[in-house]
């Protein structure tokens, strides 16, 4: 069974997303929350890294909306979930690894 990774920091100022992506296994999932959601902005270097990852990428919609990042700015292939979806992802994977 695979692992859910969460990243809560901006990829533009911190290396947590990059380090997380370097350590995920192919069947893992990554959920971007809090300031981590900036990683999905289409056209950025961070979104480029994400698109190369074999892992499934999710982003917390509430954190996107709070930050004024419209859905039209979300890179292709990223799935938007709410807190219930976060709980489902945690339940579906055997462990959660928070990249603090």
């Amino acid at each position, binding site marked *: 069974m695979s692992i859910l990774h*969460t990243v*809560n*920091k901006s990829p533009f100022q911190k290396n947590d997303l990059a380090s997380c992506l370097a350590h995920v296994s192919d069947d893992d999932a990554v959920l971007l*929350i*809090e*300031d981590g959601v900036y990683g999905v902005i289409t056209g950025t270097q961070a979104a480029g890294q994400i698109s190369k990852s074999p892992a499934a990428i999710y982003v917390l919609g*509430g954190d996107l909306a709070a930050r004024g990042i419209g859905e039209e700015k979300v890179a292709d292939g990223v799935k938007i979930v*709410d*807190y*219930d979806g*976060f*709980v*489902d992802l*945690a*339940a579906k994977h055997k*462990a*959660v690894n*928070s990249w*603090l």
Partner: protein
Amino acid sequence: MKFAIVVNEGPYTHQASDTAFQFAKSVLAKGHEIVRVFFYHDGVNNGTKLAVPPQDDRHIPNNWSALAKENELDLVLCIAAAQRRGILDEKEAGRQGKDSNNVIDGFRISGLGQLIEAGIQADRTVTFGD
């Protein structure tokens, strides 16, 4: 399914406590169980009864306290982390010869073993921090 939740940052300064709170509400709404919420590092500051946030802002310690009462949650503040940061309940304040105490109803102070035990008992352990 049984969840353990770990909160590593204090209220307001980092979003960790807010996200953990929203997550906890969703865990309960979906019919899962929360075996414990463990507050570590600056997370112990979520358990203060002295916070007076602006009227139009959320009251984080009160919100946790109310959620705990409604759902019989076990909210544990790590004693070592709490002592270092000046979070003391009435009993601990008496033992330390302090004339004030500041832990809000619904939280209890206990040891780090409670974190490990929660990790053993829960099916999933989810950490929120910085």
